[in-house]
């Protein structure tokens, strides 16, 4: 939580910086907005015109994100399963919701979530705003019907005024609640990593073992983990067995060809987002690399991209060393440039 407490002043500082250059909330140019710096190579941050990154809106969203008022018994918040210090994952195989209930899947990192085409491991949600309502109401997560959530917010001593400020007089509604949290989530962008500095031409940014690991990565992994975000953002069957309770993307497409397919996760900050896979079955990067090295479990529908790599132990270590360079820790996720 300490990292979170440090973020708000930075966001406000960014907003104030914009305001100082002429964008004042009461001025002719409209409310102050947040500008999020993204690493070189990233596309400009996608921000829908319907929900601009207003500073007041982002600040409200951040407060809501970490406020357990949005859970049935007041015990968990969005931030309980998406911790900033863990790149907005939670370190558990499956997250704990109200009453200690567990869901089906591992809480994914929210880092760079604005860049995802779709949300959830199965891509079911198309928009950050719509997505937010699912954990809010899911009985295994926050278990609070949205109407009850809005009622609480309307009766809160501070939130009505904060909503009115961020939404030009509109109080808590489904639209304003989802917009505020989504606006905050869009600001969760990686800071540059050693890998980025290496790509930019700094040959000293990666140690020898990581450089060797990068060569192995480019040889074996980039058909799925490509581009600056290190993901195709597609859905693949990596060979792990699935159950009827969680058949993967089949759950949302209703097509059996999607059985066992899940989103290819970004590898940004991967060292901080253990455990791994949709159900958190692997606790370490070494275990993940070993899984792919042996060519997966061969479950029905396994992608042909997952095949035995026949790496030596040293090569597996090099690959893990490279993966550890994809982390901006201990920097803040939206730290200003050095």
């Amino acid at each position: 939580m300490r990292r979170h407490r440090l973020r708000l002043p930075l966001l406000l500082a960014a907003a104030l910086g914009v305001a100082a250059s002429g964008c004042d909330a009461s001025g002719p140019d409209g409310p102050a907005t947040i500008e999020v710096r993204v690493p070189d190579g990233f596309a400009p941050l996608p921000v829908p015109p319907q929900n601009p990154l207003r500073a007041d809106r982002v600040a409200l969203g951040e407060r809501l994100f970490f406020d357990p008022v949005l859970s049935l018994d007041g015990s968990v918040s969005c931030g309980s399963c998406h911790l900033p210090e863990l790149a907005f994952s939670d370190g558990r195989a499956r997250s704990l919701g109200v009453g200690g209930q567990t869901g089906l899947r591992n809480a994914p990192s929210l880092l760079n979530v604005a860049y995802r085409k779709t949300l959830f491991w199965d891509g079911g949600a198309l928009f950050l705003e719509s997505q937010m309502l699912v954990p809010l109401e899911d009985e295994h997560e926050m278990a609070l019907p949205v109407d009850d959530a809005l009622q609480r917010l309307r009766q809160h001593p501070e939130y009505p005024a904060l909503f009115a400020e961020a939404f030009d007089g509109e109080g808590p509604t489904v639209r304003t609640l989802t917009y505020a949290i989504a606006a905050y989530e869009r600001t969760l962008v990686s800071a540059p990593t050693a890998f980025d500095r290496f790509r930019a031409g700094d040959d000293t940014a990666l140690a020898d073992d990581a450089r060797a690991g990068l060569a192995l990565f480019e040889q074996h992994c980039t058909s799925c983990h490509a581009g600056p975000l290190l993901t195709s953002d597609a859905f693949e069957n990596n060979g792990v067995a699935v159950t009827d309770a969680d058949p993967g993307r089949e759950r949302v497409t209703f097509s059996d060809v999607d059985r066992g397919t899940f989103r290819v996760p970004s590898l940004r900050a991967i060292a901080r987002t253990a455990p791994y896979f949709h159900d958190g079955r692997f606790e370490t990067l070494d275990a993940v690399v070993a899984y792919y090295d042996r060519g997966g479990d061969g479950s029905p529908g396994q992608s042909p991209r997952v095949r035995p790599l026949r790496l030596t132990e040293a090569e597996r270590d090099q690959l893990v060393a490279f993966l550890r360079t994809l982390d901006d820790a201990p920097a803040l996720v939206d730290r200003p440039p050095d």
Partner: protein
Amino acid sequence: MTSRFLAPTGALLLAVAGLAGCDSTSNDPTTLRLDVEAVVDGDTPFQAGQPFTIGSTTAELSVAQMILSGITLLHEDGREITILADEPVTVRAHDESDTEIQHTVSERYVLVDADAGETVTTLGEVPAGHYTGVRFLLGVDGLDNRIAPEDLPAGHPLAPSTPSMHWNWNAGFVFLMLDGLLDIDGDGAVDASTGTPRDPASGQWRLHVGVTSNAQTVTLNTPFDLDGGAMQDLHIQVDLARLVQGIDYANPANRFCMTGGCQAIVDQAKANVSAAFTLHGVHDHAM
């Protein structure tokens, strides 16, 4: 020939025709409303929480909602007059390649909230005359089914509502939502829900139909007349029991269907749709 009517535009066009000399009241437009009434067991008004029968099975519903769109009046002269929204709204949508785009929702949607009573919606001004029938879609078609509902203004039929007609965990809307209880022990009274879907001991009954391929066109070839200068209600009945007949409710798996993994149930409901709707006539309303 197809005409697509926005209510204000329609009014403007007809006003222009009047300036050109067509001053007969029969040429005045009709202010048309759509009145959708849910019934059960033939002609009995549906009431939430009240038992009715599906074949020999007793049932009751606490939620009965559906989305209608593409409402098209079939004029005897061959014109097809499609009712559009008064105010098109631009929102986010995902195209087929999952690229986020800006999309204008111009279709007129009607959220039939049967558990709250009759649904009466003003469709706007349409030409008076003799019509051979009406056509509509039970469902949401095309990109409209891949929008961000949060972008819609409050009060729009597709805007977030309770219960939510948008799946949220999945793209798209629930076209037909039925939540209730069934008699599973044959004693003539509905049984309580145990809270566990598909539990053989549970009376819970849930049918949520979505996905564009399951949207169903309904054509009611029943002639009617619309009088110029009048406000009239196009009265349509939907028999909820007829909509879900032919399903073996003794099988617990058939009592809980959220579209995925139960296409046979969805297909049966789709097969019932046309027969479940009837055009009951046109009723006058004072202007």
